């Protein structure tokens, strides 16, 4: 496998983007990444693209926007793994360069929620769940049970179960979720591309928001953002040839493992997942990515992480699965301020997915934000400590897909 680095990053302002359409939004991120890399479109050999399938009301958007990103006469490959997709797009581009197939590849992932009246739900989530639901109705599911299921439906619902199970296991309290959410809003206020910005947000401010379903408050929930993220990946040979002026971020190791579908199983046949917060896929992904990156003690050898956490308990849960804290103890690290932007182990200094969630973009944005920290280009949300090794994580599917990407300022040994 060849050594691969990220040589350019581009993202759009995330939020409600009624000023542009999907193709324009994707092109904005791609062109910014190419400009940041200091290369020309003629240097790009292939594109890895992806978003949530069906969201934004266009099932196959790359066929329209590939012109807008300069992909004429070049390979365009799409990957779809639900919420994880951005992480998978980054890894697809990595495979393409590491394998020797291409020298310079652009990875781009995006979401445009505001085009849909109900963000994602109508065209997106229905076509994910409709077959299973139809089958359950056929087997006598009544409307009351369906509505009860809907009280905690879709990703937010599953995350609510997850939050409850994590609390039951770890002994943390809702206050800790308030602390994590407040940190996300504060960090986002420093990031010019973020969506939900709240300078000086305190946990007490989050605690005042409405309880949607105990233990999840309105203040814990991520927004439905529009936005796109893009990175340019290059092989070691290409870097010597292109001679980028700015620092690059090397990819040390990647891994992606699937777990079982955690909720109902295919056609309501059940699943063997007892605990929504067990996340075996994340544990396996982390283990493999660290092995490939030659990391034996992640807490000591990694400097910061961008974790895919649309809901605050997930930052705690995943930071344990990624090996940064012992099982059930991440909330103590939050109490001590270890995960703050200026803490000993910053997590999501960008504000993370809890403050900005353009779903497809979110997974790739984690990789991009880690690269920015390594390149020291994160501007106002640059962490004060030196970042040599960073970990980017993405999560999605029916809570079972995970990707882990390890980045560094130095190439793989």
């Amino acid at each position, binding site marked *: 496998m060849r050594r691969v680095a990220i040589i350019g990053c581009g993202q759009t302002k995330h939020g409600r983007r009624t000023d542009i*359409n999907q193709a324009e939004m994707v092109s904005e991120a791609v062109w910014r990444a190419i400009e940041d890399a200091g290369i020309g479109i003629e240097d790009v050999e292939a594109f890895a693209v992806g978003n949530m399938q069906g969201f934004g009301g266009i099932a196959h958007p790359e066929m329209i926007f590939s012109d807008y990103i300069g992909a004429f006469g070049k390979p365009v490959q799409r990957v779809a793994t639900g919420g994880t997709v951005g992480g998978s797009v980054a890894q697809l581009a990595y495979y393409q360069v590491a394998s020797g197939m291409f020298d310079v590849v652009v990875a781009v992932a995006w979401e445009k929620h505001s085009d849909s009246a109900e963000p994602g739900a109508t065209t997106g989530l229905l076509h994910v769940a409709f077959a299973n639901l139809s089958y359950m109705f056929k087997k006598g599911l009544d409307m009351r049970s369906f509505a009860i299921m809907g009280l905690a439906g879709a990703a937010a619902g599953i995350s609510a179960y997850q939050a409850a199970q994590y609390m039951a296991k770890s002994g943390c309290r809702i206050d800790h979720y308030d602390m994590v959410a407040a940190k996300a809003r504060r960090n986002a206020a420093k990031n010019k591309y973020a969506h939900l910005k709240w300078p000086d947000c305190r946990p007490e401010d989050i605690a005042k928001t409405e309880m949607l379903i105990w233990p999840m408050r309105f203040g814990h929930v991520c927004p439905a953002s529009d936005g796109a993220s893009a990175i340019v990946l290059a092989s070691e040979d290409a870097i010597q040839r292109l001679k980028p002026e700015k620092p690059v971020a090397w990819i040390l190791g990647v891994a992606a493992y699937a777990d079982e579908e955690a909720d109902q199983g295919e056609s309501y046949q059940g699943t063997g997942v*007892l605990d929504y917060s067990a996340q075996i896929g994340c544990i396996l992904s982390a283990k493999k990515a660290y092995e490939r990156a030659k990391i034996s003690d992640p807490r000591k050898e990694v400097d910061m992480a961008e974790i895919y956490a649309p809901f605050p308990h997930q930052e705690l849960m995943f930071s344990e699965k990624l090996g940064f804290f012992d099982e059930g103890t991440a909330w103590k690290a939050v109490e001590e301020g270890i995960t703050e932007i200026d803490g000993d182990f910053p997590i999501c200094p960008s504000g993370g997915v809890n403050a900005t969630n353009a779903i497809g973009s979110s997974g790739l944005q984690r990789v991009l934000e880690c690269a920015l920290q390594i390149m020291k280009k994160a501007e106002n949300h640059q962490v004060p400590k030196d970042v040599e090794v960073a970990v980017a994580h993405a999560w999605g599917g029916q809570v079972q897909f995970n990707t882990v990407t390890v980045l560094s300022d130095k190439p793989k040994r």
Partner: protein
Amino acid sequence: MALIKEKFKETKRVFGEWNVGAYRWKAPKGYLDEFIKALGEKKILGTLCSGCGRIYVPPREFCSRCFRKIETKTIVSNFGTLLAFLVSPPLTKGKVLIAGIDAVESGWLKEGEEIILGIVNFDGTSSKLVLPVLNVKPTDVFVGMRVRAVFSEEPKGSLSDLIGVEPAEQVKF
């Protein structure tokens, strides 16, 4: 350089609807028909994997962990343990919209009721089911609570026969 539209705050809008339309999905043969038949007799049916010993509820036709076909069916206990739970605030009109329909206004859910959703592990199984926790106040529910299945009074062999769980006798030491 990308297209820059500094002149416009709003791009041109076009409205449209996407009807998901009619599909003809094929469901696996599975054991779900037998599962709902058992519910009609106030029993819970699972399947036992001969490879790893996991018991799945609802009954699954293959084991995803050791990837082998499952042929042994077994009736599992009606008793179980609450692994975790959620509590809804008292429901009001306009709060619960499902596919654009107000669940309170349409009478599916009652105004003012607080619904407790439990993650239930029936004894001896390797699966969990999400079921309403009935006949108990939200303040009295706790993780690890012993629960028993509640069936509708006149079960007719459908998914809705299993309406939830309620507290069982709590053994205290």
